[in-house]
């Protein structure tokens, strides 16, 4: 048992400390950008009082907006108070899947910047099957998800093929393919088969009700079955990496491609397979986002999910469980940030500052080690620092 705790402490300590520090520093920003605080900066006593209440109010609002808001229970059931939590999970769901995509690629030594593009293709596939065909509910959802997975895995697998065959670096290729995907969706939404009748702006028809992912807690909560799919996917990734020969090869190539090759593992095949599965995961994220939340495909369907996924994977140290936790944290920050902005004078942008600071600290373990005087904080800076030829 002790060993277990040590292991948790070892792997979770750095992300935990990074999050704490990000909140503290952002808190200072909140305080010092607040007009009411700056007005009383001359008198220390008042300043501390106003500053601490600003600080607390902002983060209380963030918490209420992300998890539980007692005001919402008035005249309703206790469950309704958890409406923010439902929103957090809904936001986190696509992020979990996209994050798993990036994490899986990391484990195999690849930096998948392309989750954004793969997400878009997943959304396109799911949307088309969702609005164009009619099936019985379970079949329809399954087929729509599959369509998203297949399109996105082809999109991702192509990157693997290019790398295996020509050595083209996946970072550059995926960045470029994100642009292609972004413009492709703009174009396809204006084609006859996708454009909603009697509309000229890029908007696809709503998917048929039979293709919608069912809500889990009734119609007042937006929480849908996508979270179950995301959690299953996390279990799948863990299983794949740790219990199968394929995962063994992924990890071997990720940890030392040269030794893997010498032992007879085909690095090219592994690379293609990794990018295909990574694409499938991000695509599943896009599909779930359409079928459970958005219902209609828009050009901005992917938002910044694909890029936040990279942060989430880094924060989760490319481990499935960590990725889920990190995605939930980011979902909470986003949902809570909106309430914070509405209830206090703190802008939503502070959430971006928090996110950025988290990444900054995660990426510089030596700094965290120095600040907290920790000797044996496991250095995992290598995660993101693979060279161009890696």
């Amino acid at each position, binding site marked *: 048992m002790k060993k277990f705790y040590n292991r948790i402490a070892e792997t979770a300590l750095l992300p935990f400390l990074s999050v704490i520090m990000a909140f503290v520093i952002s808190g200072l920003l909140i305080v010092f950008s607040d007009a009411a605080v700056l007005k009383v900066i001359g008198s220390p006593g008042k300043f501390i009082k106003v500053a601490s209440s600003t600080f607390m109010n902002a983060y209380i609002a963030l918490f209420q907006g992300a998890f539980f808001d007692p005001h919402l229970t008035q005249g309703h059931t206790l469950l309704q108070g958890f409406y923010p939590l439902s929103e957090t999970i809904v936001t986190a769901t696509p992020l979990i899947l996209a994050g798993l995509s990036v994490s899986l690629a990391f484990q195999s030594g690849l930096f998948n910047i392309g989750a954004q593009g793969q997400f878009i293709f997943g959304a396109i596939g799911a949307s088309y099957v969702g609005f164009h065909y009619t099936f019985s509910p379970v079949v329809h959802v399954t087929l729509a998800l599959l369509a998203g997975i297949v399109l996105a895995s082809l999109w991702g697998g192509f990157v693997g093929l290019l790398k295996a065959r020509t050595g083209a670096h996946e970072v550059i290729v995926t960045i470029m393919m994100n642009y292609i995907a972004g413009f492709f969706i703009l174009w396809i939404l204006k084609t006859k088969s996708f454009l909603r009748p009697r509309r000229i702006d890029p908007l696809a028809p709503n998917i048929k009700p039979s293709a919608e992912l069912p809500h889990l807690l009734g119609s007042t909560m937006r929480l849908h079955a996508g979270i179950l799919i995301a959690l299953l996917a996390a279990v799948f990734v863990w299983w794949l990496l740790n219990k*199968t020969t394929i995962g063994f090869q992924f990890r071997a190539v990720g940890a030392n491609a040269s030794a893997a090759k010498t032992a007879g593992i085909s690095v090219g095949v592994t690379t293609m397979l990794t990018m295909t599965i990574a694409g499938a995961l991000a695509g599943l994220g896009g599909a779930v986002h359409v079928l459970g939340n958005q219902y209609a495909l828009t050009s901005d369907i992917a938002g910044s999910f694909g890029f936040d996924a990279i942060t989430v994977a880094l924060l989760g140290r490319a481990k499935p469980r960590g990725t889920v936790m990190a995605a939930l944290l980011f979902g909470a920050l986003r949902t809570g940030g909106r309430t914070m902005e509405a209830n206090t004078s703190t802008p939503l942008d502070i959430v971006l500052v928090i996110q950025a600071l988290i990444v900054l600290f995660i990426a510089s373990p030596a700094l965290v080690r120095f600040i907290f005087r920790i000797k044996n904080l496991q250095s995992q800076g290598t995660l993101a620092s693979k060279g161009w030829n890696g």
Partner: protein
Amino acid sequence: MSLELRGVTKTFGSLVANDNINLKVDDGEIHAILGENGAGKSTLMNIVYGLVQPDSGEFLVDGNPVTIHQPADALAVGIGMVHQHFMLIPVFSVLENIILGHEQSTKIGSLDSSAAREKILKLASEFGFHIDPDAIVENLSVGVQQRVEILKALMYDAKILILDEPTAVLTPQETDEFIEIMKKLRASGTAIIFISHKLREVKAVADKITVIRQGKVVAIADPKSTQEELASLMVGRPVNLTEKKTIHHDNAVVVKVSELNIADEVGRPLVSNINFEIHKGEILAIAGVQGNGQTELANAMVNLHKNVHGSILLDGQEIVGLSVNKSLHSGIAYVPESRELDGLIGKFSIAENLILDTHHEQPFAKGIFMSNKAVEEEAQKKVVEFDIRTQSIDAPVSSLSGGNKQKVVLARELSRPVRLVVACQPTRGLDVGAIEFVHKRILEEREAGRAVLLFSTELDEVMTLADRIAVMYKGEILSIVDASATREQIGLLMAGVKS
């Protein structure tokens, strides 16, 4: 000038690197420090040179106590050091490298190197170095680069010269020349601390030998001691250095390599016209100075290299063009040159490293499902069989010592059905005990009737193990000689001289 160390102790955490070491080096003496890797030689020398601070102990130069906190202090009292890995700037000239850090200016502020140039030429002629001060360092051979390093130390009046494994990078001929240089330096009154694990050289040149084991001075040995005696002192138990070779008479050819050519990506030849055969129970050693195409040839044996033309027949079957996996499984055990880079995955456990090649086969996997139990059982078995010293089979392989890492590689590679063993620099960086183990294991494979292709730059190793010796020079096999060939013959071939 004489140097004396008294009671030098240095600990790193719980590891005692140097334990109360006393050492006395006299004027004009070549004092060899002999010890295995990790015995504490390098730490001791880094302390003398001011790179590492001791926990306790004192230095006396000519009987007077001195303090050395940094290399500049060492240089000031006349201690110079030539590191194993040269500290030269490749694109600078010899002169520029030597004056680096001691630049003199003329009155108008430009670099004045005329005095330095004169001194270099004077020293070079005194010791018989043929050195052009304006030659660019990267164009010089390793042996000459080493002389530049020595000159650098002598320029600033080093009276005690620390040479850290100086012969590791030299050909036999260069080594002989180097030994002459050491003798000349001694004659001129320079004291030399010579760090080495090569017994032959130590015996050839040292006046006194201090043997260090586990951080302690275990003996001051006489250079007249036999190699076995010295090795036993180093390891702390009797060592049998010369392995017994029994001659096998089996004419069945296992491997036949013919007209093998290897090119780089743009088609420039790296290795040309390689032809050889290896018989059952025979060790063919490929000798040569590092970088003459051995790595490429070794890689080609298991199809790790692209652009290979020609034929490699293993028991009559062509293997050129197979996948790496198929080559390995056709009966080749492959011990790569770099354990850390190509042999093992440092982050992976010992158990995982043992099945890198067979993880997808029964009993370790059924379909794509891996069986942890089978993997663990295999690891337990191999750890015992190959005497891999570890607390747990789940420990990352990077936590093992070099010798144990190599045992993991050997255990993995020899666990498949093997007809040919390709071993590249199998004992590089290993200590005496591990070298003994590896050699024994290679000889066992030979006894069992396998063909062995041994790549080694260590002439001693080649002479000890090989039945026949092929010498590579600039991508070609200059000649294949019998094991009875002399060191001189092989040394000449290594230098590219074909008689």
